[in-house]
């Protein structure tokens, strides 16, 4: 371990503060699933990912991460800033004119850490597979990580990709699903039920593991374990249960904070629950 669990939890707390402040600052964006994935991003970037903050597009010899559900950009931007990709002061520009921190992540403004645009859903898994195939051709045994939203799995392209990866033994790929059970119009169980995702992915030929995405110890161990499963002929799917809005009590357990910004009062209530550990931007 590079950090103790307490240190990682402190980083996640700061990232959560950043998320609510960023979304409040521009009065738009998606706090719910950003908060829910703060622990995953912390574990990934501060513990699991073999990466350099001196960013190159190719990332030769590095593990690469792809975010398919691009609307949770606040959690990614904050993580990248605290990991050292760019100065955290830039977080204040989120969703504002002339910013590199666009509403959804993009390479267009050359923000270090981003390798593909995402936002229109369902495309990230295919891109991650492509990056994995290129690494294989290059003799680079690094890992490819991807995060997908659960509601996003309603997009058909995911299932094209899900069919492709096991058949082609793309086995250095670890895809996580943010299984929070919520989407814009309500619970996924009501909108278009995902049902037994484990059985579905296993039927396609994936090695599926389950983790608690809001338990730092569990997610760190889960991602390390996922790495040990690579290179064995199967892609890995990490079915990661999270709470939308995790860390801010009034945002938890509902789809209502999927894409809504807090007002001043709500911001204060959120920040009171999230200790400032690394210094606000």
């Amino acid at each position, binding site marked *: 371990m590079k950090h103790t669990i307490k240190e990682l939890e402190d980083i996640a707390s700061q990232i959560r503060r950043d998320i609510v402040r960023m979304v409040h600052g521009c009065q738009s964006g998606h706090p719910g699933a950003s908060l829910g994935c703060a622990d995953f991003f912390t574990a990934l970037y501060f513990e699991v990912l073999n990466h350099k903050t001196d960013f190159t*597009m*190719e*990332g*030769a010899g590095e593990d*690469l991460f*792809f975010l398919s559900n691009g609307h949770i950009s606040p959690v990614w931007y904050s993580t990248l800033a605290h990991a050292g990709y760019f100065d955290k002061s830039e977080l204040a520009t989120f969703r504002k004119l002339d910013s590199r921190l666009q509403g959804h992540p*993009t*390479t*267009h403004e050359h923000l270090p850490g981003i*390798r*593909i*645009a*995402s*936002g*229109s859903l*369902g*495309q*990230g*898994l*295919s*891109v*991650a*597979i*492509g*990056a*994995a*195939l*290129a*690494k294989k*051709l*290059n003799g*680079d045994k690094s890992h490819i990580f991807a995060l997908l939203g659960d509601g996003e799995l309603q997009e*058909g*392209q995911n299932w*094209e*990709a899900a*069919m*492709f990866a096991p058949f*082609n033994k793309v086995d250095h790929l670890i895809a996580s699903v943010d299984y929070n059970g919520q989407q814009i119009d309500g619970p996924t169980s009501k909108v278009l039920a995902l049902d037994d995702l484990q059985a579905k992915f296993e039927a396609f030929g994936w090695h599926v593991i389950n983790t608690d995405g809001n338990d730092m110890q569990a997610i760190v161990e889960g991602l390390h374990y996922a790495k040990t499963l690579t290179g064995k002929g199967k892609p890995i799917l990490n079915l990661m249960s999270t709470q939308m809005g995790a860390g801010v009590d009034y945002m938890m357990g509902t789809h209502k904070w999927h894409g809504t910004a807090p007002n001043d009062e709500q911001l204060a209530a959120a920040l009171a629950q999230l200790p400032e550990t690394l210094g606000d931007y």
Partner: protein
Amino acid sequence: MKKYTYTEKKDTRSGFGAGLHEAGKKNENVVALCADLVGSLKMDAFIKDFPERFTQVGIAEANMIGIAAGMTIGGKIPFTGTFANFSTGRVYDQIRQSVAYSNKNVKICASHAGLTLGEDGATHQILEDIGLMKMLPGMVVINPCDYNQTKAATMAIAEYEGPVYLRFGRPVIPVFTDPDQKFEIGKAWMVNEGTDVTIIATGHMVWKAIEAGEKLAELGIDAEIINIHTIKPLDDEAILKSVKKTGCVVTCEEHNKFGGLGESVARLLTTELPTPQEFVATNDTFGESGTPDQLMSKYGLDAVNIVEAVQKVIGRKK
């Protein structure tokens, strides 16, 4: 009228296959992907020599575009292959976000474009793809005119950094361009110098423009014929220079007149040099089943239609 002859007929898609094979030999980063149409795209030679650099994606075009975009991140130069319809309309958003907006070095290679796909009918005969692709910021759009030009274009785009849409077709047509030509993206080819009218043609319509030029010569009309193989970026200079001389223009394409080469030329002329223009193109319609020749005739894409358009546009000159 300069005399053009040919000794053989070949399909442009075979030019693509040959060019892909050559590009693969020259650069080990060239990779190919296909969505279950290897034979139609003439990828066999590439696959035989570079099996590890070929990815069969199956009938999953969206996934193919995404995988291609991802492969560029590892320094690869992916050429995706399927029919033009499935290369564009079916995967527009994947191209828009993962390729164009992300500025990925993907070559979207599209066969069976236009009416000359023939008997399969309108579900497969896309006449809107040039418009779809040229609207994407940063996308290069190329529609070569014969086997040799398609082969040269394929090799050229491998050396160009950035997203490209390469459009070609199914039917065998005359091979009349130089086999050793150097293909320059964005540079028009002067097919025939003339003074009375500028005929601007792309793809399969270039040979038809040459046939039309010969008929026009018999009628005493001296046509300048320009091949625009690169619809975007358009060779503004070559078009303006010619039109300044001739004072009228006919554009020819196997595509809907809405959104095609003709509109690109009209946009240029409207802003720079307002000029009478006629369009030889399909007129806001889908195609249908038939032989390529029958369809080109029925939808007004033959040499005779170019001749008529020329006579009309010359009559509109002030």
